[in-house]
């Protein structure tokens, strides 16, 4: 698969000019930005904020009762959502006072087994929202600085940073559309994506501006290596996603691990975006730059 994809992409890149390469990734970036903007205007946040950032209580129990039965049973509490995965049911509650909270916890723990409870206070959630924005900002700026230090030229560095930015935006838009909430886990995934997504861009840029050879050949070689890299990572993440999300279908005693499932799905979406952004967007800009007449073929021999 790795080799096949690299061949197809390589032929596509060779047979299209720089503008054509940029068209698709820029269009998808624009659509993603629109999705995030519309969401921001209509809900006040570009992505769905999960319980970690809004406050509330999530209780996951092992039970034979159906979600409808449980919803009725706990209707005296501010229950907002009930979901079933295999033999487990996850109930989501809004913010409660301490007394109600303790009562609910005692009730649940007295009646069910294999209980998992997570509770976040609304003020802490607000604090976390601010910190999350800061973390994303610091992380992105830090990445940008490292990239500039590595290449010390504007256009190539800018191309890398733009494609990393696009990866994050597309992954966030994917979260919005697929209904994946921003939790601490998915925040970590987005931060990780900032680091991960530049790996193949650094490889590409390094090969093109610091090596001898024709641009076409260098891009093609970098692409074969880069696609292998991304596919191996995708293989690791896909395994993590499948085990953490669907293993209970095969082995009933297993349970969904939401944290791992969320981290992996966001990274998978981001890495698919990364394949496109590295090999079309970044390559398009870099190829245009390296072939500029004023360099007199400096990067193409």
């Amino acid at each position, binding site marked *: *698969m*790795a*080799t096949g994809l690299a061949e197809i992409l390589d032929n596509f890149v060779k047979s299209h000019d720089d503008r054509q390469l940029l068209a698709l990734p820029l269009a998808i970036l624009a659509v993603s930005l629109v999705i995030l903007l519309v969401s921001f205007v209509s809900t006040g946040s570009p992505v769905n904020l999960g319980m970690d950032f809004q406050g509330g209580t999530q209780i996951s129990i*092992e039970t034979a009762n159906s979600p409808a039965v449980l919803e009725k049973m706990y209707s005296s509490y501010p229950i907002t959502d009930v979901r079933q995965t295999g033999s487990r049911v996850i109930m989501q509650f809004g913010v409660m006072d*301490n007394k109600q909270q*303790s009562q609910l*916890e005692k009730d649940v*723990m007295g009646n069910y087994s*294999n*209980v*998992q*409870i*997570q*509770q976040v*206070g609304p*003020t*802490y959630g607000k604090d*976390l929202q601010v910190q999350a924005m*800061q*973390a994303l900002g610091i*992380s992105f700026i830090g*990445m940008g*600085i*490292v990239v500039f230090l590595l290449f010390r030229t504007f256009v190539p560095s800018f191309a890398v940073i733009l494609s990393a930015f696009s990866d994050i935006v597309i992954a966030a838009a994917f979260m919005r559309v697929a209904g994946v909430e921003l939790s*601490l*886990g998915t*925040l*970590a995934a987005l*931060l990780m994506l900032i*680091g*991960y997504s530049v*790996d193949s861009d*650094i490889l590409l840029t*390094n090969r093109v501006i*610091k090596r001898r050879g024709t641009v076409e050949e260098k891009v093609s*070689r970098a692409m074969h*290596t880069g696609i*292998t*890299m*991304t*596919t*191996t*990572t995708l*293989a*690791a*993440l896909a*395994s*993590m996603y*499948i*085990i*953490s999300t669907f*293993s209970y279908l095969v082995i009933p005693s*297993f*349970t969904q*691990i939401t*944290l*791992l499932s969320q*981290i*992996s799905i966001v*990274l998978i979406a981001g890495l698919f975006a990364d394949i496109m952004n590295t090999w079309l967007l970044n390559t398009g800009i870099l190829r245009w730059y390296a072939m500029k007449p004023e360099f007199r073929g400096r990067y193409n021999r």
Partner: protein
Amino acid sequence: MSDKKSLLKNPRVIIFIILLLGSIVAIHPGYTPGKGTTSNLNFGLDLEGGSWLQIKLEGALAQIDVDSGKLVSGIVEPIIGAPIEITKNDLDAGGSANKSITFTTSASVSASQLEYLGTVSVDKLSGNTTQVTISDTSKESLIQAYLSKALDAEVVIPEKSTQDGIVYEIRTAVTEEQLEALLEKVGGSIHKNEDGTSTYKEGVSTETRDLTKSILSDKLNSLGLKDIPVRTVGDEYILIDFAGIDLATAKEIAEKPGKFEIRIQTTGNETEHVLYGDSIETVGIPSFHDEQWHTSFTLDDKGARTLQKIALETGAIDNPDSHYLKMYLDGVEIYGAPLSESAAEKLREGPIYSWEASTGSDEAAKAEATALQVHLRAGALPVNVQLVGSGHVDAGLGAQFKTAAMVAGLISLVGVAAVVYFKYRRPEILIPMVGTSTSEVIMILGVAAVIGWQLDLASIAGIIASIGTGIDHLVIITDEVLYEGKLPPTRVFKSRIGKAFTIILGAASTNIIALSPLVVMGFGSLKGFAITTIIGVFIGVIFARPVYGVVIKELLHVDEIGNGSVTE
């Protein structure tokens, strides 16, 4: 097999092997029949079962600007219901303690109304002029007294605050607007920094946070719950892990105060009950004066009167040395000393509200005074706390998580191996690659075992992620080395490895930089993820990946000689 020999002579390979073996020793995997597999690894609550509480310490820190005269008028006038005229004021003079202010007023004043401000003396000068002097006070203590009374909370000056102006710590939740409004009543305001920003800050001082932490640790230990980690996250949050304890019990433990008691010696070793911890109103910060360390505390009315009554009855006032005052926490004696002569004299006249327990003059005495400060609070925390987060995982569920997470890790490795084999179709590349990746995982676990890091679900996600990046970097090395499809001469090989490492180091630094905010910021559960991933990247770049370069050269070299050519 000369290649094997030369491999084992390479210092990088030697270090790598030592680290790998060291990690295995540190992890100490084992199998006990009946008990299953054992190891030195610590697992987090979400894998072992248990519960955790996260609490926020409510308080505010601010520097305060106020004119001392206006401050006294602002405090006193509403109490006595008449305007005052300040006749003498040395509050603003240098030096810290024992200053005084004198004023006259037309209203009648009783000393007890103003007693909380300092030592008060009232003189009737003429028919409708009363002169009042408040001494043993200072501007700072007046501000403290005012805010403390208005907010019904302790107001303290943290030890380290005096360098760029005095910072007041208000140990309750108060907004900037509320504080500003209170200060306006006495003609004051919150001090602004030179750049115009406010000195108001939500939160508590580091000392208060640490005090709260040690009170909690103390209390948990006194309940026989050893090894309950109490961690601080930033200056505002405290995280407590209760392994193997359910959430309801954990909340009860954290909320239940310890039992503090003061008793007085009667005859011989007999003691008589005086008061319980609920009679203690405030506890001060340990201070050094009169060549002794002291911890101050105040009693409520009932407590102070009971103490006086019992001191008289038992004869402690006449003979302090044979009637020690003893303090107990949960039945264990923690302090004992006789009444001082001056205190005994004063008790003849009436109850004493403000007390000081002295412990001696050396470092040990300082430690004792600090411990006493914790004990006197008897589990009552110095600041209001708010439960901001909690969680619970049943042990059975944790075990399921653990198995599933391990399976996910193994399957990931297999998935990665499959992709690598599909791409290169050569076992002499596949085996070192998977071997390097596996060794990196073992070394990360080794580090975790050595530093006692708790592996939680997030850390396992971090390990799986570092399998991903690790392999990426090995692919870069492999493709760089085999740029022409076969192994180049040694000189070219070295420069190729160098080029590969330029790319790898660049990529690794962005990975580390991108995750570092998670290490510093207050996201409790993600610290593990970030730290594990960063450790993984370091181990990979420094130890494992260079060795892969050496090994692959040897293996491919053999292959090259053996097969004569390499096909891709």
